[in-house]
């Protein structure tokens, strides 16, 4: 007996938390250097460009593209199996269950735009280097700023709520008390990461 859906589900959970959680934290840390000003940010990017292009490309495929596509595509299949009902059953966990799926749908659209425009079009096709000035001019549009902030908040919530459900799915937290403690810690982390994001995104217009 090979239970394909069992292994896919567990892989989806693991891939989301470990691989994509890593991607999110890497993005937060890299972008946070913008708080140090133009020189600090561009220096960080220059450091990344020291990695030989074929290796860099392989990292992008293995650690970014494949996990993202798998988690995204299988995730859409999972989200379609839910009929969200937080208005009928307005418990906190049920709201988070619905939010997990709503943020997922926003992230599908947001990431197609983000990866498609910045990585594939700007960097890949136009051959432009990502720089402080480029990000600054992109975020100068208040609509773009808003959509990006929302995208970051969605990704952060999806990740943090994912920590709570990961602990349940893998049978780490069994009883209601331990589940509640992890939930509160994850939501605390979510708030911190959102504030941190807002700080480095606004820093472009403070320097």
């Amino acid at each position, binding site marked *: *007996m090979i*239970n*394909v*859906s*069992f*292994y896919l*589900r*567990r892989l989806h959970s693991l891939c989301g938390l470990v691989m994509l959680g890593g991607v999110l934290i890497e993005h937060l840390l890299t972008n946070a250097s913008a708080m140090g000003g133009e020189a600090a940010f561009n220096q960080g990017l220059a450091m990344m460009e020291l990695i030989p292009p074929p290796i860099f490309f392989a990292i992008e495929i293995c650690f970014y593209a494949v996990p993202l596509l798998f988690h995204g595509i299988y995730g859409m299949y*999972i989200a*379609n*199996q*839910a*009929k*969200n*009902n937080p208005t*009928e*059953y307005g*418990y906190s*966990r*049920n709201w988070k*269950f*619905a939010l*997990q799926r709503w943020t997922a749908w926003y992230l599908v659209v947001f990431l197609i735009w983000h990866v498609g425009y910045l990585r594939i079009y700007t960097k890949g096709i136009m051959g432009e280097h990502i720089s402080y000035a480029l990000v600054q001019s992109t975020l100068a549009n208040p609509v773009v700023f808003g959509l990006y902030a929302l995208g970051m908040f969605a990704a952060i919530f999806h990740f943090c709520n994912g920590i*709570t*459900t990961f602990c*349940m*799915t*893998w*049978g780490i*937290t*069994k*009883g*209601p008390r331990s*589940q509640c403690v992890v939930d509160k810690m994850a939501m605390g982390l979510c708030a911190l990461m959102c504030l941190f994001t807002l700080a480095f995104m606004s820093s472009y217009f403070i320097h």
Partner: protein
Amino acid sequence: MAEQKKTVKFIIERQDSPTSNPYTQEFEIPYRPALNVVASLMEIQKNPVTTDGKKVAPVVWECNCLEKVCGACMMVINGRARQACCTLIDDLEQPIRLQPARTFPVIRDLLIDRSVMFESLKRVQAWVEVDGSWEVKDAPIQNPYTATTAYEISHCMTCGCCLEACPNVGPQSDFIGASPSVQAYLFNLHPLGKFDKEKRLEALMGKGGITSCGNSQNCVEVCPKNIKLTTYLAQLNRDVNKQALKNIFNK
């Protein structure tokens, strides 16, 4: 003080056949203390006349024990899955909306077909294979603490509240739901039932098994028997993960 008769208003979602379109009708019955939803439906049955004076076919619903033991009268009352027999009118906001639990196929009005849960119980082998019996003194012993847990889970009356409230159970998904999953755990706790533990875990690892749980935790909130469903689901998650490791490395 002007004597005004207190009444209870109902808005009932009705449906004439499994395939016909649902519609609503309003009924009003006299109030009496300690009135519950089943008693109200019986009152409507005596004189099935809507508030606008139309004589209609009596509302169809299902009930048996009238004491929250059989699970048959589960329906959606003011938007929430509950047992009609133990839901007191005094605790409800009026008008009271009654709807069938549409996670299951509707047969007529509030009557639903819950046989899908029986199929799920068969799938997870929710029974103990018995080959003969013992004298009490010779029978395999049961840990009394485990027995306490088993007693709690054995209260499950397959009413289907947990399935109705779960966003992952319904026509859009193949998830069997909390109740049948947790019954697998009950029989895994049994001194003889645990011989088939692996079979039950394998059944739960299949499509629509415990992996389809999305942790919305509505099940534990609505369970009329207060079974700690999410705790046992998490335990089952542990068990199936261990089983998966065994499947990978022991074969």
